[in-house]
């Protein structure tokens, strides 16, 4: 478990560094700490809930075995993301060198990375779900139900943790600023103060405030 945890943390740090390079060295360096912190925070907050859900689904997994299984998920996701880090770093440096100093390719870069995280997460989820099915007394349907519950919990908590730990990479416009290490509950561009509001606003797509981006 220690090995898979360390690999997950290092993988997350490497990917975070590449991501932050799109903005500045400051963001890249901070992400070396922030991304592993994101994994550790999420797993610490979800640990008991993961275990209770596993018990409720008759998995027969102990608390330790549950944490091990979930960290294998993190391990696989982080490893896959770390393998993309050179490509992300290259794109980030190119974007940085060619952006207009305002929005640049922020939206495209964000979308591509969200896609990468989703693909890596789904691949890890499918593989670990299958392994869970093979190694425990669970039926295939129940193993995937368990992994789905874990994923939903992790997304809900991890999303809020990520929102709180912003910025991981920002608009080129903010380059040269030194924002706090975590922005916390400070409103984002559309005024969302937490992850769930941000998701709601993504769905409702309200317009940006008229004073933005000059107000940032």
């Amino acid at each position, binding site marked *: 478990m220690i090995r898979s945890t360390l690999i997950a943390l290092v993988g997350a740090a490497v990917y975070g560094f590449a991501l932050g390079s799109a903005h500045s060295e400051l963001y890249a360096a901070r992400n070396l700490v922030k991304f592993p912190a994101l994994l550790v925070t999420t797993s610490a907050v979800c640990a008991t809930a993961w275990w209770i859900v596993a*018990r409720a689904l008759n998995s027969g997994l102990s608390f330790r075995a549950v944490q091990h299984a979930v960290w294998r998920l993190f391990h696989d996701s982080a490893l896959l993301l770390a393998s993309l880090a050179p490509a992300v770093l290259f794109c980030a440096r190119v974007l940085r060198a060619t952006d207009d100093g305002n929005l640049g390719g922020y939206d495209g870069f964000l979308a591509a990375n969200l896609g990468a995280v989703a693909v890596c997460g789904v691949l890890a989820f499918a593989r670990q779900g299958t392994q869970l099915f093979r190694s425990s007394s669970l039926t295939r349907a129940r193993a995937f139900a368990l992994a789905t519950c874990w994923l939903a919990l992790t997304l809900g908590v991890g999303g809020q943790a990520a929102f709180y730990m912003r910025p991981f990479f920002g608009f080129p416009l903010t380059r040269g600023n030194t924002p706090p290490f975590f922005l916390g509950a400070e409103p984002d561009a559309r005024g969302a103060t937490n992850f*769930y509001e941000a998701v709601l606003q993504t769905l409702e797509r309200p317009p940006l405030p008229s004073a933005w981006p000059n107000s940032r």
Partner: protein
Amino acid sequence: MTDADIPPPSPSAPSPPSRPPRARAEPLLSSEIAASLRNPLQLVDLVLATPERLAANLESASAGPALALAFVVAATLFAVPYGLVISWDSWWRIAALYLGSTLICLPSLYVFARYVGVRVGPLQIAVLAATVPAVAAMFTFGFAPVLAFLRATMESESATISWLDLSQILLAIALVAGIGRLWRCILFARGLDTRQPLVLVLLGWHGVFLHVLLRMADVLGLRG
């Protein structure tokens, strides 16, 4: 190829292999239940991991008092951390929400079940109903760190979605888990000779229970 082209199976043809019959679960023993009252981890397993054994207890009407006590203890103790996260003086509110609503609605479940001819004792009905608050309390125990994290990282005054809104969703998930477990017990209790009327009564009873639970949530200040 249409359905008409498929020859009908001959009576002598071997039938497809059927799934082996599930081994009949043993009822929980009083000694096991007593041991779980001394060890919280065993209590978690008793409440969450053994619906088929609990169903066997319902069928055989065995260990009723011990089971009822274990479920009430679980529903009370495991709900405390979540209440503490809401506020220090709310430690009792989650137990009051789930267990209180169940206790208020328990007489109606028993009387209606008996009235339509379900042959179960009051303790069997109490154990069955107590699965809801006990399982819900277990889930709130798991959600307590999540809520504490949300509370620590979210604004509550100006936010469109506050941690208290999300708390309501978590409490609803816990409730659904509890109701789901009750139905799993009923599903496993195939030996209950009056299961069908009990199912009908339970369907109606859920309406009463949910209504009381929502009112209870209002009274306890757990709804926005």
